[in-house]
């Protein structure tokens, strides 16, 4: 008896373990997200962002043999007790130009949860909850809808999103 996996909905997550003294400067990323939110401008390119992006592409390639190409990036700030509307990073009418994967990175988070919706064959509308901690990433197929909730009442949550195409 043999098995062939035709499609897979996998969630990749973990800490961004940069070499010592080369850690991601999350304060700088938070500053850029804040600036981008206030000015409504695109996130500015920085060495820190490049470090994060390169780390993800290198390690996802090495450990899971997925070659990623960056499509776009943005940052969001979530207020205390805020829950987003369901988010979807593909355009169902333009799948050709839509990303394959969505990556969320915890820039400055506290009680920040991501809920990802998925279908398990005929069992539709299931969801998976995972906490997005500081310096942690979560990557999943962009075809999965998700929402983000800030489940505490004291501080803002800063989350960086990067979308990727796999080649």
């Amino acid at each position, binding site marked *: 008896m043999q098995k062939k996996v035709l499609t897979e909905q996998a969630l990749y997550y973990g800490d961004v*373990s940069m*070499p010592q003294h*080369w850690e991601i400067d999350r304060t700088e990323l938070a500053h850029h997200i804040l600036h981008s939110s206030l000015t409504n401008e695109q996130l500015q390119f920085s*060495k820190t962002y490049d470090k994060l992006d*390169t780390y993800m592409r*290198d390690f996802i*390639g090495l450990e899971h043999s997925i070659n990623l190409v960056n499509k776009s990036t943005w940052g969001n700030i979530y207020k205390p007790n805020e829950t987003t509307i369901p988010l979807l990073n593909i355009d169902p009418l333009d799948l050709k130009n839509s990303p394959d994967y969505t990556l969320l990175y915890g820039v400055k988070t506290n009680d920040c949860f991501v809920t990802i919706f998925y279908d398990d064959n005929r069992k539709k509308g299931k969801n998976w909850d995972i906490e997005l901690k500081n310096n942690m990433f979560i990557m999943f197929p962009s075809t999965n809808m998700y929402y983000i909730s800030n489940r505490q009442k004291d501080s803002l949550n800063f989350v960086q999103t990067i979308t990727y195409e796999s080649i």
Partner: protein
Amino acid sequence: MAHFAKIDENNRVLAVLTLNNKDMLNADGVETESVGQQYLEKHNNWPAYMWIQTSYNTSLNQHKLGGTPFRGNYAGIGYTWEEDNQIFWSKKPYASWVKHIESASWKSPIGDAPTLTTEQQQQNDALDLNGKRTNDWHYRWNEETQKWDLINSIV
């Protein structure tokens, strides 16, 4: 062109980059690995000591063009850098295989596969009326029995 492997903290190769030889010249105009490492640290956001020079023409501790082999093998993604023996190792093919330092290769616990007999080699070389090979005798490692199995792939 020079080549450098980018390694992680577990000495696994993440990527291999090409560098212009002029970017690794020291003050005396001599190509130096440490200068290349500094260049890569500055331009690629990864610490200098985690860039290791590798030779495109070295494989199994032999230089393809007859020169001096350098660090065992040309590094590839997923290879492992071994500082002590100065060798880039490919992935271990079987759990029981061991490192053979002199040839920078993995060897089975009972050594290399036996040589094919003259008859087997002749059958491998023979072609049918359509010019196709009729036999492909070779040995394949059997991890369960810890022996080399003789296999004919075509028949």
